[in-house]
């Protein structure tokens, strides 16, 4: 067989697959076969490239050409032009939004320029369903090195020195966690991977598992060796079918090669991993609830201590780490703790993966060094706010975090800075909001989520959050009073102090941080009965500007409740007592005479 001269990498992440990237693969293969090129050009489905906004992505190697928004019917032109004649297909190249020029090398795109990819090093580069490609990228070398050249204590020492902190949210030092688990003596210990990613708008862990599942398996085995565990468990939500499938393929291949199983690399160390499926409850991302769910019990948290490191799965010492944390481990083992700790800030080392979502131009998955500012993330990598609107806030940390505003834009992102600013790192979701977003409604949205996801075990969370949500609802309907704002604040503080687990303790954060940063907006809702962003329907008033109205009657005909009256060619008016604020007249009017206030 002759050697492949070209590789066509097609994104196989959930996002791009939803835009038919599997059909692109099929069409490319068919087209190549017709031209007799199937032995010269290889088509590979990879994990997520991160640039989801412009998906599906097809990358041509070694030409390093990055095609965006490719459709299945573009396969023939890519083969005919690029593959056969060596001419780039200009219309599929990325266009720089400011310079209006085509950019074919992804390294020169604003989106990728500031990124450093450690956890995502193989995403969009290898075929996640082929263990050989992982091995070609030094896969399982770190495990081999640990087993043959290092003692468990040395492994823990490396992780401690690297300064790696948990990427699941709280930022607990990973090496210290491993050390505690290693010191607890027991006949059986467990390594648990928390893949229960539940924040709205977050897809970091899913992308790592879909794009590079072996890195997590390898890290779990390294962790097992260092703490003295022979069993690993991956807790993943059943609503991630592609990640589950790729993990299953990876597990099978790892066992076939013997990098999981008995006597790995002839070292005498046994380690194997099982999967546990969750039903997708947010609270199960909390480690004690996660462990209960794995045991077949209700997914409810319990008080800590005892910490899982003492008494976890089935009462045995268990070390729980999140997917992204694990994905960093093999690289640290190979490149050394000094290399890792040279990246990032004083107290937060390495990089962090963020999922950019909301009103931002480049929705997608990014990995930046700790200490990158919010401005760089949102305006350089993220490409700024959609439709040229004004930036208002960004929610980090999901429903447990808070919002950061204009004045925080130059804040270097790390664990401690975000907490000091009233938010938190969380697992890495970043939801960007623009001037059209009402912050009271945003707080209400997150509360709605927590009310839904509260497990109901402790009353501050079960009842308190429900009351918070009711109060917010009340305010957005225009019935709020100043006393309500006082109650909102007090109750939030009480819930923070008294709830049992992390979910409850952090659920009032969106309320508190929006109150802190956007107090004016709360006042506008309560005192002026007005929603400055124009989002709260009950606070809106429709009226007709008599000077602009030409009396065309279009609005009156569109109104479903007959609230608009007026003579032909005379200015019309809206009876606000009947108006249901549906917006039909606003849509219909060609003269911008309908005013919303």
């Amino acid at each position, binding site marked *: 067989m002759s050697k492949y001269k070209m590789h066509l990498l097609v994104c196989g992440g959930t996002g791009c697959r939803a835009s038919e990237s599997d059909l692109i693969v099929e069409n490319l293969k068919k087209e190549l076969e017709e031209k007799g090129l199937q032995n010269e050009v290889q088509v590979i489905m990879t994990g997520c490239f991160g640039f989801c906004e412009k998906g599906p992505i097809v990358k041509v190697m070694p030409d390093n050409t990055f095609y965006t928004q490719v459709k299945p019917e573009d396969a023939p032109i890519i083969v005919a032009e690029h593959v056969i004649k060596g001419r780039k297909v200009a219309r599929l190249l990325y266009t720089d939004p400011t310079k209006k020029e085509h950019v074919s090398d992804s390294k020169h795109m604003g989106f990728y320029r500031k990124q450093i990819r450690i956890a995502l090093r193989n995403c969009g580069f290898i075929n996640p369903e082929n263990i050989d490609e992982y091995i070609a990228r030094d896969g399982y070398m770190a495990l081999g090195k640990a087993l043959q050249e290092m003692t468990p204590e040395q492994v823990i020492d490396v992780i401690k020195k690297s300064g790696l902190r948990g990427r699941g949210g709280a930022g607990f030092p990973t090496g210290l966690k491993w050390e505690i688990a290693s010191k607890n003596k027991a006949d059986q210990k467990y390594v648990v991977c928390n893949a229960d990613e539940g924040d709205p708008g977050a897809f970091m862990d899913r992308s790592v598992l879909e794009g590079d599942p072996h890195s997590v398996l390898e890290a779990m085995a390294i962790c097992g060796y260092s703490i003295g565990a022979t069993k690993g468990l991956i807790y993943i939500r059943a609503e991630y079918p592609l990640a589950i499938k790729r993990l299953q393929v990876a597990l099978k291949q790892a066992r076939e090669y013997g990098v999981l199983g008995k006597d790995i690399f*002839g070292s005498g160390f046994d380690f194997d991993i099982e999967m546990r499926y969750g039903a997708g409850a947010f609270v199960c991302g909390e480690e004690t609830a996660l462990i209960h769910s794995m045991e077949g019990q209700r997914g409810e948290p319990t008080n800590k201590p005892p910490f899982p490191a003492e008494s976890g799965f089935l009462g045995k010492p268990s070390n729980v780490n999140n997917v992204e944390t694990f994905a960093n481990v093999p690289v640290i083992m190979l490149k050394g703790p000094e290399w890792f700790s040279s990246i990032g800030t004083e107290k937060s080392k390495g990089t962090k993966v963020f999922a950019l979502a909301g009103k931002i131009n480049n929705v997608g998955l990014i990995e930046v060094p700790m200490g990158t500012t919010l401005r760089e993330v949102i305006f350089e990598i993220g490409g700024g706010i959609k439709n040229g609107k004004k930036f208002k806030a960004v929610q980090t940390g999901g429903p447990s975090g808070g919002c950061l505003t204009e004045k925080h834009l130059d804040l270097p992102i790390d664990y401690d800075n975000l907490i000091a600013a009233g938010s938190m790192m969380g697992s890495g979701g970043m939801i960007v909001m623009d001037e059209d977003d009402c912050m009271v409604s945003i707080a209400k949205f997150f509360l709605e989520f927590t009310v839904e996801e509260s497990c109901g075990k402790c009353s501050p969370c079960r009842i308190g959050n429900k009351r918070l949500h009711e109060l917010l609802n009340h305010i957005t309907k225009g019935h709020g009073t100043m006393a309500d704002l006082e109650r909102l604040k007090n109750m939030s503080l009480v819930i923070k102090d008294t709830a049992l687990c992390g979910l409850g303790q952090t659920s009032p954060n969106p309320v508190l941080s929006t109150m802190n940063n956007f107090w004016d907006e709360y006042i506008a809702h309560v005192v002026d009965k007005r929603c400055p962003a124009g989002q709260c329907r009950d606070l809106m008033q429709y009226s007709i500007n008599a000077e602009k109205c030409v009396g065309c009657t279009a609005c009156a005909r569109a109104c479903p409740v007959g609230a608009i009256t007026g003579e032909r060619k005379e200015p019309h008016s809206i009876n606000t007592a009947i108006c249901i604020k549906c917006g039909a007249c606003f849509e219909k009017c060609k003269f911008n005479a309908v005013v919303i206030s």
Partner: protein
Amino acid sequence: MGKLKSLADLKKIQEEARSKLDLRVKGDNPENYVQIKVAMATCGIASGAKEIMDFLVEELDKRGIGALVTQTGCMGYCYAEPTIEVTLPNQEPVVFGYVDLRKADEIIEKYIKNGELVDGIIPVNYEKVD
């Protein structure tokens, strides 16, 4: 391949696996390698550019030279096809014309390995805009 018994076994697999991923690794950092562009427009293909490209890919690999062979469109020297452009790391590109198998072999042995210029260089008659 059965179970891996040691780190040495893993390294053996890695070597083979790496050669399959080579294209992507080189493509990611082209500046570290010898870059060769083969003009593959209609004129080039008709003059046998494909054969030259196959030869270069295989021979460079056999002779252990880290090189990146890609195809490009018409370079404008249709009279001298097949043409190839060779860029050694940190050097200006050089274009060779009338490249047949013998010439290709000579280019590898003399220019790529030792930096000696060989006959058939076409003076570049344009500037490129990046």
